[in-house]
């Protein structure tokens, strides 16, 4: 890794802020054209203020009231199933004293100078935008009250907004919001300090159950607009044959058969980008046709000779050996507390274990798709994007047009999970639309494209060794994590994890252990590694929570009691004291790690699951707890392993402390879904490479959970923390504890410890074999 990079500064920033930091080394000079402050100026800013373009709380940007009284709230975050369009509108409507039935939502195009940061990732939409959206609503409410006071010629203190009208309290006169809208809009926005925000007891929608989902009706009637549903006159349809090996290029191609396919109009080459390719398209040969089917058939008829390039030797079986060997040797020390060697030497016994997790593909149900139209030096795109601003920037750069001449419209996302933070597929549409000047072009990825050309969740080997005292409790703790880093997308030679990856359940290990050494040996990336829902928390949590369960059993202790003992006395830990300089971009003072909250969720989940109860043969309970995205989550799974090796998840109890709950119904749905996605990861998920190419092609080979694998019963227990704590993340933190809880439950059920994922093929046959022996 380049020593000129300031790892702290890089990782303290957002994903794009991070890129800017890389750009500062000259590795990515294009980054300098983004036009926002220097990477190092933001060091002391946290939360939404620390993101590129920060937050905006101007009601004139974010809401409008029509003459009929209907209120339109602009949503600047991408909707991908987390319910943010509903939840942010609830916040505005509550402070505005609006009638929810009269609230509509429109989606902001990519424009961060106007709307503040729009990167929908990191489980931070609500935690960064709750307060600004409250202020928008409160400011507008105040302006409506002022407009009514002026109309009535009375002191504003006598006027009070209540459920879509302003009431003059002494006289009982009323004016509706629609009538007041024009006069209110002409008033200056009151200063932030002067706003009267509601007390929690006054909330009408915030924290309440069963709010009408803004997009619900459109979804169930098939009218919701996702990326592929944008329909423009004269639109053409394209598919692209991309290099299967990362860094591959087209050596030669023959499109003569393609051009004979009915409906095919044109074949174009898209240039590949040098590695690392960041968010640029992989390149390849595009087939443009009158409909998607013709484009698919035309692509099949292409004859392409590829130059595979340096990554053609990437082989997952070999690479696993490389990672596991690296995990057994010393590496870069990223945290050192106490004297590990001395503590290991003094220990009465020790235990070591290695864990392995393969690559995964996000594979949202909506494959990548985008529509673009270029005309007279302007480019307009419609796409399911988690990152509209960087999309706009990259399109402007790639087409050589001004940023101002690019419009990025954000559709609903048919799932994102991190994949749609990368605009490669949208840039493809822009390139083709430019070539077809004036005609809109839709680029549709097939499922095979999605699985072959993802930005994959990293592959990881984890090694742990604990020195134990006479009670079987660890006094020395060594953990090595080895995994290709997301930073490898942005600059050459990035072989260590960034602080933002290490800070996901590795460096911020909160346990009361005297000597801790954490190491990160090198790993070279041979494919595009990208964000996947909960990111590096997946391997770190799997290893740590599996290992603690192993230690508990080795000590002959109950895993819950062992976990509680390991957690030690309740305390608030400054993440900086754990070498976590990142802390999910949040202030270390405002967001310490609170071990009482970890204890609370563990006890809640265990109690709800009936921890310790007698179970029928073949069943077991497994516990895991994890802090991520500044939220606290514990899971207990009740698992049955059948004689044929199949799994039944009878019950899942998920306890969540994510701070105050804004839309509890959507919080529960996120954790229910995360449980199923966690099971996909643990039981089925594996992307493997051979000769540089992904071996899986569609859902028969890259399997994801179907209904029978979902828990027969899943209950999300929302724990309300004591005191004044800030909001935590919701979208991602439900995923990491599922896999270790599952494997801990399988151990409880069968006595077999599974240390690598996925578990499905490892279970086939062995329970029966075990019964025979």
């Amino acid at each position, binding site marked *: 890794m380049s020593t000129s990079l300031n790892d702290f500064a890089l990782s303290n920033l957002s994903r794009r802020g991070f890129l800017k930091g890389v750009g500062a080394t000259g590795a990515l000079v294009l980054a300098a054209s983004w036009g926002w402050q220097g990477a190092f100026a933001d060091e002391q800013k946290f939360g939404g203020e620390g993101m590129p373009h920060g937050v905006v709380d101007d009601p004139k940007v974010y809401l409008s009231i029509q003459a009929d009284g209907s209120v339109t709230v602009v949503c600047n975050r991408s909707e991908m199933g987390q319910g943010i369009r509903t939840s942010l509108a609830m916040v505005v409507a509550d402070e505005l004293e609006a009638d929810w039935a009269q609230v509509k939502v429109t989606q902001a195009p990519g424009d961060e100078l106007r709307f503040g940061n729009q990167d929908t990732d990191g489980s931070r939409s609500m935690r960064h935008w709750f307060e600004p959206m409250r202020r928008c609503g409160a400011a507008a409410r105040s302006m409506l009250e002022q407009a009514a006071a002026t109309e009535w010629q009375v002191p504003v203190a006598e006027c009070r907004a209540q459920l879509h009208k302003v009431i003059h309290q002494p006289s009982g006169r009323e004016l509706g919001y629609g009538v007041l809208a024009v006069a209110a809009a002409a008033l200056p926005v009151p200063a932030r300090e002067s706003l009267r925000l509601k007390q929690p007891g006054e909330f009408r929608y915030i924290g309440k159950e069963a709010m009408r989902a803004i997009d619900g009706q459109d979804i169930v009637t098939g009218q919701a607009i996702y990326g592929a549903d944008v329909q423009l006159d004269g639109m053409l349809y394209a598919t692209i044959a991309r290099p299967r090996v990362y860094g591959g290029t087209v050596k030669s191609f023959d499109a003569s058969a393609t051009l004979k396919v*009915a409906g095919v109009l044109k074949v174009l080459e898209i240039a590949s980008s040098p590695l690392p390719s960041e968010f640029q398209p992989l390149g390849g040969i595009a087939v443009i046709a009158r409909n998607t089917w013709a484009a698919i058939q035309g692509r099949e008829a292409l004859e392409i000779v590829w130059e595979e390039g340096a990554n053609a030797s990437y082989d997952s079986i070999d690479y696993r050996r490389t990672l596991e060997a690296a995990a057994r040797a010393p590496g870069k020390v990223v945290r050192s507390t106490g004297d590990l060697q001395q503590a290991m030497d003094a220990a009465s016994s020790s235990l070591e274990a290695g864990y392995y997790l393969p690559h995964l593909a996000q*594979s949202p*149900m909506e494959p990548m798709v985008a529509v673009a139209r270029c005309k007279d030096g302007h480019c307009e795109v419609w796409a399911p994007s988690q990152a509209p601003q960087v999309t706009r920037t990259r399109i402007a750069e790639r087409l050589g047009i001004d940023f101002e001449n690019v419009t990025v419209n954000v559709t609903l996302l048919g799932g994102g999970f991190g994949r749609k933070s990368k605009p490669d597929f949208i840039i493809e549409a822009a390139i083709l639309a430019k070539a077809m000047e004036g005609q809109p072009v839709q680029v549709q990825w097939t499922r095979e494209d999605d699985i072959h050309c993802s930005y994959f969740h990293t592959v990881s080997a984890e090694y742990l060794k604990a020195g134990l005292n006479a009670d079987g409790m660890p006094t020395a703790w060594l953990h090595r994590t080895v995994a290709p880093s997301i930073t490898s997308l942005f600059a050459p030679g990035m072989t260590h994890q960034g602080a933002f990856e290490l800070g996901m359940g590795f460096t911020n290990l909160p346990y009361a252990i005297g000597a801790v050494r954490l190491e990160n040996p090198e790993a070279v990336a041979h494919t595009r590694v990208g964000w996947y829902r909960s990111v590096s928390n997946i391997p770190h949590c799997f290893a740590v929570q599996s290992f603690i369960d192993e230690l508990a059993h080795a000590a002959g202790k109950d895993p819950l009691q062992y976990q509680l003992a390991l957690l030690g006395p309740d305390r608030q830990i400054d993440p900086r004291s754990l070498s976590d300089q990142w802390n999910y971009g949040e202030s270390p003072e405002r967001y310490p790690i609170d071990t009482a909250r970890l204890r609370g969720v563990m006890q809640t989940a265990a109690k709800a699951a009936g921890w310790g109860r007698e179970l029928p043969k073949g069943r077991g309970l497994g516990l895991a707890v994890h802090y991520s995205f500044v939220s606290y989550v514990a899971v207990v799974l009740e698992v049955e392993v059948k004689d044929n090796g199949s799994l039944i998840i009878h019950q899942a109890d998920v306890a969540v402390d994510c701070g105050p709950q804004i839309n509890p119904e959507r919080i529960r749905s996120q954790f229910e879904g*995360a449980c199923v996605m966690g099971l996909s990861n643990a039981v089925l998920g594996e992307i493997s490479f051979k000769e540089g190419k992904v071996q899986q092609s569609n859902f028969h080979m890259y399997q994801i959970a179907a209904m029978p694998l979902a828990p027969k019963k899943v209950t999300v227990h929302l724990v309300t923390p004591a005191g004044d704590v800030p909001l935590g993340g919701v979208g991602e933190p439900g995923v990491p504890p599922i896999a270790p809880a599952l494997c801990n439950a399988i151990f409880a059920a069968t006595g077999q410890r599974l240390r690598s994922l996925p578990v499905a093929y490892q279970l086939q046959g062995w329970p029966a074999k075990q019964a025979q022996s």
Partner: protein
Amino acid sequence: MITLNLNGQDHSLDITADMPLLWALRDVAGYRGTKFGCGMGLCGACTVHIDGRPARSCITPVSAVVGQAVATIDNLHHDPVGQRVQQAWLETGVAQCGYCQAGQIMSATALLKSNPAPDDQQIEAAMVGNLCRCGTYNRIKSAIHLVASKLQETQA
């Protein structure tokens, strides 16, 4: 030209006979409620009804449905059972991203028409081919039970 009966109306479409029904619906006839997920009949996002039976439109060539009634999510609110399913989906808060839900709702409606009171195993058997990456399966099951209970109330 191939004539297809889509949502109760005949449409003459300029398409090849091997075109999967999915693309004829979406790109040519303009019914965009039906979604593309895998192209191999593996995920169920493209589920439609053909003469009332659930079918994966991504692997059904248009030549196979000439003369049959094709129904999609776009018109389901005119179907009494379909309408109840849609209502139950809203009441249960099933959808997250919603992309697969058109297919889920079409499969659930077909199930409830053939079996108005399915148990959990029957639901799993009928819905196993409809994938949801957001993981809404438990709520799908609850919503189907909710429809079943309302259908029984109506009959009682």
